[in-house]
């Protein structure tokens, strides 16, 4: 086909010979991209009488939406909770490095920290699009400090806080500003938290429940007020009990308002959660599963002593991924569901008009190439 620059200035790329994830199925279809968005080729054909300028042969690979990681504390020596002078450089480094894992958008996560750290770090991190320079930043995820002391996990106890009379004002005092914040994790059993949940949702911030000893009705109350996520299910919460399932019960609760989905993050490394427990959660509520790394600054670095915010931890060994569902479901858990959680309709899917953030995978789900806005930003060395 001759080049078609007369139809539009922006070049049109056609990815052929691939199996794309669309409609929860892998289909043998071509994917068309123009100006960073996925194009409807039928409209192009009939309305504009256009056709592709370039063809990229995917050699039969799987093409999925780029992965979205909503919980990542740092990596490659960078700790997002560290109050350094140049936080954005650290964010940029991580955003560039995670391209090789197929992550095209992410939420830099801060663990419980003193107010001074929040006041210093938050203004330096801005929401921005990804590109050749790195994955896109969707906003910060603030995990703590309004969490339960009994379920603090790796968070430092001395910086935990509760809501005093002020509710949302206490939260604003702790963080400084909510600009560029995409998600906040808090414990819903804390007094005064319900009004905070409501106010945060009103401001467009996703509220997540985690590091909590809440029972099921407290959790359901928070969902009523607008909470929509559970931070690393099973970890840092009361275990499932058949007379009070706690936060875990949200997966099958009938008090979740209709039309709303409660999503839950899973660290599927086989260590944080037993694979059998992961499968129980997946089977109970497959549409809510969101894969997260909860990676720390030691990711990508050799073993040794590292800091996580204000803590010091030891790193040993490797992590492993655990499969337990179909390929399509796994891919959706890493891309579509996080996008749905953050209400980003143009990400996490390969529908017409969506952002062309893509990953090419082989049949074993090893990454072959990463694209942001249709541009190749990482390719596996042959």
């Amino acid at each position: 086909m001759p080049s078609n620059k007369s139809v539009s200035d922006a070049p049109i790329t056609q990815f052929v010979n691939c199996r794309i994830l669309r409609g929860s199925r892998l289909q043998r279809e071509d994917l068309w991209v123009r100006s960073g968005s996925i194009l409807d080729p039928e409209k192009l054909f009939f309305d504009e009488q256009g056709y592709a300028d370039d063809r990229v042969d995917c050699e039969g690979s799987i093409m999925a939406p780029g992965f979205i990681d909503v919980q990542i504390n740092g990596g490659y020596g960078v700790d997002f909770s560290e109050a350094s002078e140049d936080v954005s450089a650290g964010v940029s480094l991580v955003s560039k490095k995670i391209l090789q894992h197929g992550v095209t958008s992410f939420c830099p996560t801060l663990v419980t920290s003193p107010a001074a750290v929040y006041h210093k770090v938050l203004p330096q991190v801005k929401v921005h699009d990804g590109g050749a320079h790195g994955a896109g930043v969707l906003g910060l995820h603030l995990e703590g400090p309004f969490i339960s002391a009994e379920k603090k996990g790796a968070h430092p106890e001395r910086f935990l806080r509760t809501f005093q009379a002020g509710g949302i004002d206490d939260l604003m005092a702790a963080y400084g500003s909510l600009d560029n914040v995409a998600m906040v994790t808090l414990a819903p059993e804390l007094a005064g938290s319900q009004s905070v949940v409501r106010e945060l949702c009103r401001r467009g911030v996703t509220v997540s429940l985690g590091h909590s000893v809440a029972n099921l009705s407290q959790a359901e109350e928070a969902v009523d007020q607008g909470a929509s996520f559970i931070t690393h299910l099973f970890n840092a919460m009361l275990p499932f009990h058949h007379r009070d399932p706690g936060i875990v019960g949200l997966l099958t609760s009938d008090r979740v308002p209709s039309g709303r989905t409660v999503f839950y993050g899973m660290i599927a490394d086989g260590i944080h959660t037993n694979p059998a427990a992961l499968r129980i959660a997946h089977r109970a509520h497959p549409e809510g599963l969101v894969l997260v790394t909860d990676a720390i600054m030691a990711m990508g670095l050799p073993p040794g002593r590292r800091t996580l915010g204000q803590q010091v931890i030891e790193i040993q060994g490797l992590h492993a991924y655990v499969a337990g569902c179909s390929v399509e479901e796994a891919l959706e858990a890493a891309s579509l569901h996080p996008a749905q959680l953050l209400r980003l309709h143009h990400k996490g899917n390969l529908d017409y008009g969506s952002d062309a953030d893509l990953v090419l995978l082989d049949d074993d789900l090893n990454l072959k190439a990463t694209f942001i806005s249709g541009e190749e930003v990482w390719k596996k060395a042959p």
Partner: protein
Amino acid sequence: MRLVILDDYDLASEWAAKYIRNRIIQFKPTAERCFTLGLPTGSTPYSCYQKLIEYYRSGDISFKYVKTFNMDEYVGLPRAHPESYHSYMWNNFFKHIDIDPANVHILDGNAEDLEAECQAYEDKIAEAGGIEMFVGGIGPDGHIAFNEPGSSLVSRTRVKTLAKDTIVANARFFGNDLSKVPSMALTVGVGTVMNAKEVVILITGAHKAFALYKAIEEGVNHMWTVSAFQQHPRTIFVCDEDATLELRVKTVKYFKGTSVLAVLLPGLSLSNCILCVCVCVLDISLQQLFQSTSHLIGVLMGTKRCVVWNLGKVGTGPTLDIKGVCMNKGWRCIMRPACVCIWQLIDCRSLLDVGYNKAKPCA
């Protein structure tokens, strides 16, 4: 009229696809002289389109200089609707081939002025030099395109209200909800299709058998609009066994019996061709040879090309395709019942290439 009867739907589709393919190649279309093709939609031509896509993928044919004109489109259905004929043609044909979008014409059922749209369509056909070959199907009520019973046999492209039969037949694509099926459509007229140089009608399935009977064994009648093609100089009806169920045995035998060795030898040059004819005379009689399935073997000679059509079921014989390079393990296979092949090879080299040396003489 030619009536080509194949054993089943797949073979009928393959025959038709090969015929279309070969005609396009023979025409040698160029940028200045495109091959204009009229196209149908529906379940009948689906497999034919699949085959054409296959031939494109294997490099046998290009649609770069082919202009297409579809027969019809629903009125009022959004173009992006999965049941619109635009969607059908895109998903089942255009997106898989190298056709130029500017050469594709489908009536717009959402045009502001439907009559002007129809007139413009006729003008576009005239501008393109007329239709070289119109491929069509037949409805259970004998209609061609949406020319429902009672349509004028000299009609042109226009708006038509759909008959109840047609709406019922199409309901299966709209979740069996009659209210969702569009009630009007734009369609080429019977006269429009009659103006084509050649017409190929695909008819498969027992539910079309009565319509086929009315179309070819009864008179020309506007209640069975396909019957108009009895008056066209070049019409081929391609059907499967099931579609012949309402025909007279005599008709079927006649057309199956014309497994004519139709040999067209324009520009034959003896000095550079070798003509081989093998006829199986071994353990079967000539009558048996022609009995079970219908064959029509045509040979087209083009310069430096060996084109052999095996236009019928071959049984266990070879299928020689357009590159002329298949040779199914020697003469014996070719000698199998019901197979008649004519080769015309342009030079000895290609004869050797196809393994002539390996062929054993008739036993």
